[in-house]
């Protein structure tokens, strides 16, 4: 085994021991990205209430579990940075890039495709910076109400109806988030919508509206119906549906029946189905199939008693009509589903549902604990004595650390990602995503030493304490090295002056978080009892 290998093994073993003793957790590779296995915490948010049991952490991967939330039709989940402006919560715009009106997406959230329940959404979040407000915008295809509005709008456009602008306004209003004024409808004018309709939706309407465009057309001819009409007049049995062919001929509703606008047994009170009432049209077709099937069975029975060539001919015509009715029903079902899918999957026609989030501390105590921490450690003050010899003065000290940004003491440095694009020209700007930074480790430390000095040339600054002010670097979450200036008293090299004057000398220290010290104390104390 080489020296390098041995060193690496020792390092690995030491790291493991320290990890087990102090962190009691698993190392997750930050480079793996925003995935479930990186998550260190589950935050549950009830969309119905709406409230969450735990606060959203910062600088930590977490999973957001949203209960009582419609998980259908979700296409994308975006996170936008929010801010308060004039008492209103608004989305932050990137003015620098000229995006005055369009909010910049901070990042796209990955969701767990395995739905725990149909009304539960699991979202995997990367570490978020502290003191950030954000909105989780769940983008989905048009749902029921908006879909109906879009269908009405489509029909109005298709029919050149004057109602089209009103339907468009209704749709526009339906897809906007009222609180944030976040519009996801990219076709944000009727003219643009009409263009989209023209090339994307109109073909469906053309196909579905005109029976002549149906694949099974042409349907029954007038001649076929006359044959049927004549046939029924030759029977002496009263036939419940015998009037159907005659009425279809008289009213010229043959195509309407085959297109599903009317059932075969319609009467004067029957209201025709609308062109986009695909469900109604399918129902009508089902009714017509049932009617024709009954006629077929009745006639088949009748032939066994009174077989005539005309009746045989009628059977063929009815059989053919049933085939076409079934084909049309299938066609309308398929095409209307395709149309609905086309609308719901269109990325220009989306609606939004917003979940509010943030990493701002809710109270001053939490906020304070994120900025201030207490340490206990050993400082070594260096100084030149009266004989100009360097003296090292070790001292116990306790101090308060003031961080330049809120820090999450429970976050491991390894779990904070690196390498996110700093200023992407397009796409998410990752502005609220925490990245590994020196500011997660640097702090201003103000400390006081305890006890006197053995070296009589030195003395405490005030009341048996020496003041330490320096910059600290946190590592392994609970430990810190600090370097800075110590304020103490030192004997003068002037032989006539016996007073010790205040001077500033350098110090370096090693310290541990009070919380950790307390934990160690809790472990050790029982051993001495």
């Amino acid at each position: 085994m080489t020296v390098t290998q041995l060193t690496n093994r020792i390092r690995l073993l030491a790291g493991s021991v320290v990890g087990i003793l102090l962190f009691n957790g698993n190392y997750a590779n930050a480079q793996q990205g925003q995935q479930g296995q990186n998550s260190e915490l589950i935050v549950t948010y009830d969309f119905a209430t709406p409230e969450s049991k735990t606060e959203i952490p910062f600088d930590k991967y977490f999973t957001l579990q949203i209960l009582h939330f419609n998980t259908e039709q979700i296409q994308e989940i975006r996170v936008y940075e929010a801010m308060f402006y004039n008492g209103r919560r608004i989305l932050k715009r990137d003015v620098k890039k000229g995006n005055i009106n369009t909010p910049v997406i901070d990042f796209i959230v990955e969701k767990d495709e395995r739905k725990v329940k149909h009304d539960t959404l699991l979202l995997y979040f990367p570490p978020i910076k502290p003191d950030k407000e954000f909105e989780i915008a769940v983008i989905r295809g048009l749902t029921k109400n908006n879909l109906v509005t879009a269908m009405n709008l489509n029909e109005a456009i298709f029919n050149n109806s004057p109602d089209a602008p009103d339907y468009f306004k209704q749709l526009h209003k339906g897809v906007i988030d009222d609180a944030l004024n976040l519009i996801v409808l990219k076709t944000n004018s009727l003219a643009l919508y009409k263009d989209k309709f023209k090339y994307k939706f109109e073909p469906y309407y053309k196909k579905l509206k005109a029976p002549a465009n149906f694949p099974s057309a042409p349907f029954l001819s007038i001649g076929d119906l006359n044959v049927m009409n004549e046939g029924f007049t030759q029977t002496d049995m009263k036939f419940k549906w015998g009037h159907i062919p005659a009425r279809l001929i008289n009213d010229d509703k043959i195509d309407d029946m085959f297109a599903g606008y009317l059932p075969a047994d319609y009467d004067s009170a029957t209201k025709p189905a609308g062109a986009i009432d695909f469900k109604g049209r399918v129902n009508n077709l089902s009714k017509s199939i049932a009617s024709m099937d009954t006629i077929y069975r009745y006639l088949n029975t009748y032939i066994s008693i009174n077989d005539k060539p005309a009746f045989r001919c009628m059977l063929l015509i009815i059989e053919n009509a049933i085939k076409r009715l079934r084909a049309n029903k299938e066609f309308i079902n398929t095409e209307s589903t395709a149309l609905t899918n086309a609308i719901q999957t269109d990325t220009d026609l989306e609606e939004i549902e917003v979940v509010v989030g943030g990493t701002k501390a809710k109270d001053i105590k939490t906020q304070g604990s994120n900025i201030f921490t207490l340490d206990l450690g050993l400082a070594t003050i260096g100084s030149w004595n009266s004989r100009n010899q360097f003296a090292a003065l070790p001292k116990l000290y306790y101090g308060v650390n003031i961080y330049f940004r809120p820090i999450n003491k429970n976050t491991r440095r390894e779990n904070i990602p690196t390498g996110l694009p700093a200023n992407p020209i397009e796409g998410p700007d990752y502005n609220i995503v925490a990245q590994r930074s020196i500011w997660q480790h640097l702090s201003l430390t103000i400390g006081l030493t305890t006890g006197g000095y053995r070296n009589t040339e030195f003395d405490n600054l005030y009341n048996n304490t020496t003041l330490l002010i320096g910059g600290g670097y946190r590592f392994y979450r609970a430990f810190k090295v600090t370097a800075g200036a110590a304020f103490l008293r030192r004997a003068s090299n002037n032989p006539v002056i016996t007073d010790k004057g205040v001077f500033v000398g350098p110090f370096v220290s090693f310290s541990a978080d009070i919380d950790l010290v307390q934990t160690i104390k809790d472990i050790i104390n029982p051993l001495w009892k």
Partner: protein
Amino acid sequence: MRKILCIISLLVFISCQKDLKTKDIISDLKVTPNVVDADGSSLVSVSVVLNDRAATDKRNVVFTTTGGNWIDGKNGKITVTATYQDGEILAKANLTAPASAGIITITAASESTTLNGDYNLSATVTANKVEPTVIKLEPSSFGIGANFTTEDTLVAKITGLNNNNASKGVTVLFEDLNGNNPAGGRFRAVQATSGAGSTVSAIYGAPALSIGTPITIRVTVLDKNSVKTTISDATTLTINK
């Protein structure tokens, strides 16, 4: 990281003790006057200012001199405790001028020793020679026994222009005259050159002369070439037994 190292380096640098200078301990050494007659009695006032943060037990200042004598001092050295005066911590001492001409150096230093060096201040005083202008002879007795049966002590005081002592080193000549001729007596223990007290002396014994004979004792200042000057004094002793 580089910035942090720079800051720590700066702190290490600024935590160094600043170089100690003499003025951080004592300053403003004053000598008044700095020109004085070398008469062995003129006073020179010396003062020095101590650091105003000096501890009360660290205020002793040691003055030393290469000439003259400190009043209350010993061996050219005196230790004085500085006191607070007029907003300063002052150490003062007085020095009597030397009897010899020349430049003397006065040094002040804190009694608190330092390990890294000596920190003291120095000043010089010029002691100008006081030339003799007057010599005055005083016998111990005006009567003396003949044939060396008794002796008379003769002391002559040499003074300068300001009636102060002349600088030491003035050489004189003692003579005894019986009329205009030498009397033939003997001088012993002659101190013909003046010292710090600016005096010369001798012990005189008279020869065998009859009672009542007057003997003139004359003392004359000699120049550097041992030639008599006009500065002289005389007294008359009478043979009394």
